[in-house]
């Protein structure tokens, strides 16, 4: 805030917005649409589309529509919305998309501040994902965490009663389990989430980094990266099987539920589906935090959020809807319907009842404390998106696992990153 006058102006507008609430929308558009990627938790989408939207419709008279995009397709949809400047007024964002679409999104700092005061404060690590040039460009509702999902019965049979706390201990457990016919299966192919979900944390936990905070200094060529790569190669060879190199996101879920693997890295969707369709497997499935390496323990952030696109005919009406949605009366019910799949970034929900029915989801809440955005500590830039889309990190590890030398795979990743980050 530059001056006291600006501060007063902002405060006044926030207060006015809060006072007007959803009533402001009554004078606004006849209809609005929210577009989001389908959730793995059907009840979560259903609660939004069949309970919350009709409630808002009844309250304001605005016809609310919900457009569901298939899993993995939201970035493409958002691109078409931004490029054509048409379509839904409110769109889902994830990973670093608020930075990618910065110029197409409405500043929602006032709302974020308001929500933070009411049910926050916000977790510190969310700022990297949602705040662009000191302006909030999206309102996160939760994190889709990526944790270790494992079979408690097979681990016990192998003599491992507690989930290993370090990567080396997990490797030791994996050796025993593979010998017993229960290999691990961690995605090393070109999926959209489960690969980066464990490979960034693995790199970070060994002290490796893709790029420095300045977004210009490529750091991948380091001893720390080499150690992470060497570990990954051993981890793959001694606990897994070749197919994981070609896996996309569906494969580890299928394989776990097909009782082919004893451990993987995934969101809680495996347990959710197991509870519904494979109750016997659900009984012996649990979650563990990512193991720690020599330089700590890390997890990935995938902050799913709502953003308002700036071609919306009435951004104030869209804001009014989000203000209503992110009110505890609505948000609390909505999150509870999601089976703890989304871990909220608001400290006011640290002890929310949503965590009570199933203690096995608690590690997803715990993981937020050590969660970082892809490419951390580099900025959440276009270059970061390019690195993710080109699978630079994933392929570095995958090539090492298939037999390429550590030196070669790091050199190849470094060359790609230097080109992407335009570094010398």
């Amino acid at each position: 805030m530059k001056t006291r006058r600006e501060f007063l102006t902002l405060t006044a507008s926030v207060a006015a917005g809060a006072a007007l609430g959803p009533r402001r929308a009554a004078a606004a558009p006849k209809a609005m649409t929210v577009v989001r990627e389908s959730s793995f938790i059907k009840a979560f989408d259903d609660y939004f589309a069949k309970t919350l939207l009709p409630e808002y419709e009844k309250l304001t008279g605005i016809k609310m529509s919900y457009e569901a995009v298939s899993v993995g397709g939201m970035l493409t949809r958002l691109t078409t919305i931004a490029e054509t400047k048409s379509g839904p007024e409110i769109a889902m964002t994830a990973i670093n998309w608020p930075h990618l679409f910065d110029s197409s999104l409405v500043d929602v700092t006032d709302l974020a501040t308001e929500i933070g005061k009411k049910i926050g404060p916000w977790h510190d690590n969310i700022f990297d994902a949602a705040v662009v040039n000191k302006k909030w460009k999206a309102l996160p509702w939760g994190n889709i965490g990526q944790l270790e999902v494992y079979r408690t019965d097979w681990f016990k049979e192998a003599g491992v009663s507690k989930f290993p706390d370090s990567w080396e201990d997990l490797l030791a457990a994996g050796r025993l389990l593979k010998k017993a016919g229960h290999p691990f299966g961690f995605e090393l192919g070109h999926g959209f989430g489960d690969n980066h979900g464990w490979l960034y944390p693995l790199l970070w936990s060994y002290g490796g980094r893709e790029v420095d905070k300045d977004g210009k200094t490529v750091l991948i060529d380091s001893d720390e990266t080499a150690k992470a790569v060497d570990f990954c190669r051993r981890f793959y060879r001694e606990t897994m099987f070749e197919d994981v190199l070609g896996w996309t996101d569906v494969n580890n879920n299928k394989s776990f539920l097909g009782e082919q693997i004893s451990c993987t890295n995934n969101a809680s969707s495996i347990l959710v589906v197991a509870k519904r369709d494979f109750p016997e497997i659900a009984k012996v499935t649990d979650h563990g935090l990512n193991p720690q390496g020599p330089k700590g323990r890390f997890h990935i952030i995938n902050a799913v959020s709502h953003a308002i696109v700036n071609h919306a005919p009435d951004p104030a009406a869209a804001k009014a809807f989000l203000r209503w949605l992110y009110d505890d009366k609505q948000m609390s019910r909505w999150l509870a319907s999601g089976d703890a799949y989304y871990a909220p970034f608001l400290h006011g929900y640290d002890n929310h009842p949503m965590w009570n029915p199933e203690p096995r989801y608690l590690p997803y809440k715990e993981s937020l404390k050590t969660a970082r955005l892809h490419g951390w500590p580099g900025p959440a830039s276009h270059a970061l998106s390019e690195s993710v889309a080109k699978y630079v990190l994933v392929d570095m590890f995958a090539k090492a696992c298939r037999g390429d030398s550590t030196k070669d795979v790091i050199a190849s990743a470094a060359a790609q990153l230097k080109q992407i980050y335009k570094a010398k």
Partner: protein
Amino acid sequence: MAVRPATLARPAPLAGRRSTLRGVLEREGVFSWLMLGPGVLFLLAFVAYPFFYGIFLSLEDRRVASPGIFVGLANFATLAHDAVFWQVTRNTFVYVAITTVLKLTGGLGMALVMNQAFRGRNLARAFLLLPFIVPTALSTIAWMWILDPTFSVVNWLLVRAGVIASGYSFLGNATLAMGSLIVVNTWRGMPFYGITLLAGLQTISSDLYEAAAIDGATSVQRFRYVTLPVIKPVLIIVTMFSVIFTFGDFQLIYALTHGGPANATHVFSTWAFDIGMLAGQLGMGAAVALAILPALAVLIVGLTFYLRRE
């Protein structure tokens, strides 16, 4: 009956207009453009505009939702120094070359068999078209299950038959992954060759075969000197179309491997999509997509000249 001159005179202007309009419409130049018009408009809107816009984009540093900055050929220069680009180029040519040879030989064989008279021929023809008719996204899901190491019916059969001890990693091993994609593309594309070549075969008069047989030609000679020369133009056209389609193949690869493992199956179309849509680098993505153009242009021009000469 007496005819009043006035009655005859009144309709004259209308008839004149009609004849003028009809006359204009019946002029070859006008009529042909009327017939061509919708097609030309369609091509301009959905082929020419995206094509030239693609060229325009490829000359810009154009990030999603941001204005572009003209950079000339810088995107192409960047690609030329990117090892993955050359890997993608190699993958694309291997994929197109092998699938084309397989589809061509397989399709020709299919057409020759389908051209014979046998019971249930029409049913067989209908079934052979199925891979081409079923939407690629659907058939790819079936292949996903077939190639899945855990649930693969191929692996299951091989293991049960004692041929192998454990299943192949069809999509995890770089060579097998490319091989698997080639098999699936061939399975899907062969009927296109088969049916088109069958149409060509059916135009060959049986007199030619009879004459060749009387002259003592063997079946191989009849194929070499009668069948092949007649269907050669069809063969070239169908190959040209197939090569163009295969260069642009996307759904199958994207659904099965998404270019993995470690870029072993990325082709121009899948890589261009990732860079353009997932990385938000629309200019660079367009440059990757346009990288196919020189190869396709050489192929099309070469084949067209060959056809004209023939």
